[in-house]
């Protein structure tokens, strides 16, 4: 049993090592944009995650493996979804919640039924809504008003070369490490090489979000500009790369991964349109985690329903 847990730890190291490599770039950008507040937020969150993991493992009489990077990754993800100037106790609480309530009771980062980072962020978003969604101004563009806030109030913006570059590089008000679209595109390429299967959920998620944004626009400008704003606002792209592809909650089969992503995208965009939170993607991920077994059954039934019809068609065409 000990060897099994060791091999599980090595598997965890392999998977979360990839995520850690991808997380380096958003971290570097957040430090570049926001300086010391970003460093402080990252540091306290990571240290809290580590301490909670260490002492939590002792409390449940489980051997602590430093190589299990799941709590480390979850802590960094939580920090990147926070605004840079947030009081330190909020990311500390989020990291402590994700590790002690989600990760440790269910036996580790690979067994958790919910994505720990999403749960931690959702917890503090409910408790400290004002602090979590109040952003420091970006370096140049739009002051302290985030794209999510603009969309929430039905605002629009005219796209030109300058502001599109700002949006693509994350140089706007928002969570400190989730704005740079170029970095997430690079992360997707990395995932395409290393873990291709996981990207099915991302594809489903982004596809559902794009269609929803085009059909039900929130901005009063053009639909295309509104769709670009939707994709660039908040933590949507970040979630599509890091939260949706989290192995603990990702379904096993390809069709289920796609259904999981689509379901999450629809819920996320519906919550954006109708809900009270500026960035509800973490709640959507948690809901998709909860509905994941049901989605598996549903997709299987749909496939079972479609397959005999295909067979009948093939038989009739042969006849």
């Amino acid at each position, binding site marked *: *049993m*000990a060897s099994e*847990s060791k091999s599980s730890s090595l598997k965890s190291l392999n998977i979360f090592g990839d995520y850690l490599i991808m997380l380096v770039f958003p971290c570097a950008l957040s430090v570049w944009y926001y300086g010391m507040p970003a460093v402080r937020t990252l540091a306290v969150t990571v240290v809290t995650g580590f301490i909670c993991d260490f002492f939590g493992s002792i*409390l*449940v*009489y*489980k051997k602590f493996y430093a190589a299990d990077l799941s709590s480390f990754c979850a802590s960094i993800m939580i920090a990147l979804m926070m605004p840079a100037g947030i*009081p330190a*106790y909020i990311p500390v*609480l989020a990291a402590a919640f994700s590790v002690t*309530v989600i990760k*440790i*009771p*269910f*036996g*580790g980062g690979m*067994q958790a039924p919910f994505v720990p980072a999403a749960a931690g962020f959702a*917890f503090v978003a*409910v*408790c*400290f809504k004002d602090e979590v969604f109040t952003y420091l101004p970006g370096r140049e563009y739009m002051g302290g008003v985030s794209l999510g806030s603009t969309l929430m109030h039905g605002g629009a913006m005219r796209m030109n070369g300058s502001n599109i570059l700002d949006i693509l590089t994350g140089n706007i008000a928002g969570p400190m490490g989730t704005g740079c679209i170029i970095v997430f595109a690079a992360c997707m390429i990395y995932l395409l090489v290393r873990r291709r299967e996981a990207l099915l959920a991302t594809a489903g998620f982004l596809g559902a979000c794009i269609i929803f944004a085009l059909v039900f626009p929130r901005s009063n400008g053009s639909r295309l500009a509104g769709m670009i704003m939707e994709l660039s606002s908040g933590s949507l792209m970040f979630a599509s790369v890091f939260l949706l592809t989290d192995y603990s909650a990702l379904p096993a089969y390809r069709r289920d991964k796609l259904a999981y992503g689509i379901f999450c995208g629809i819920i996320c965009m519906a919550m954006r349109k109708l809900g009270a939170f500026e960035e509800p993607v973490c709640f959507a991920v948690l809901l998709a985690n909860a509905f994941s077994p049901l989605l598996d059954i549903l997709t299987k039934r749909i496939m079972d329903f479609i397959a005999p019809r295909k067979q009948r068609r093939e038989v009739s065409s042969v006849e």
Partner: protein
Amino acid sequence: MSENSRGYMLRGALLNNPVLFQCVGLCSIIAGTATLKDSLFIAVLLAADLIITCVIASALLKKIPRYVRIAIYLMIGIAVIYPVLHYIEEKTLIEITLGMRIIIPLIAVNSVTAVHCETFAVKNSVKSAFLDALAAAVGTGAVAVICGIIREVIGKGTVGGYELNMKFTMSTMSMPFGCLVLLGFLAAFIKAGVRFSQRNPGSRSEEDGPDRPEEISLDIGSDDEPEAVEMIIADYDDIDNILSSTDEFLKSLTGYPGDVNGGDGE
């Protein structure tokens, strides 16, 4: 307190705690313990209901068919709760909130009473039933009060209505979700304490030893087992009794052999 009584109390209040380990009576605890005052109401009313119903069940209801007994528990609960509530209101002049006025009648139909009456009180003497009910009431009440204090302090920054001037509060703790998380942590701490005392037998006092009931030991698993959330029910015979009684009840109602085990009875 005799050794036997102490064994009942230890088992019923701590190791077989109805809320934490048998997972009964969760509704009233989760819904009604957002503040210390509300949790005290819940604790007192639950204790009155549980003790009086169990004593009456043990003294008078042994010969009555099971399906009639259940209705009688409900009637006793209603008959007990409202006089006690009015007495508390008149004597203490405490105003009960609207939310609590919705939750309090539901205490009459709580599962703690039904489980303790059916699995223990109707099969044992009045004294044993009283001790068992008292232990369960103490355990449930303690959990309610602890939850009430912690939820009020963390969720509202007050305790008993007095402001604590905390730097921040977490409104999540006032929600049912916060109570569920708190109950999980309380159960985990008790489990860790029991595990610690079993690993260090020297730390256990000798006076607990001889008359300690057999069923108070918790199944805590071995070190090599994968860590997972497990519902701990110390006395498995209780569950068997409930299942067999439900089986009999279904038979008497429908005429068909009820199968609550979901299989061939194995």
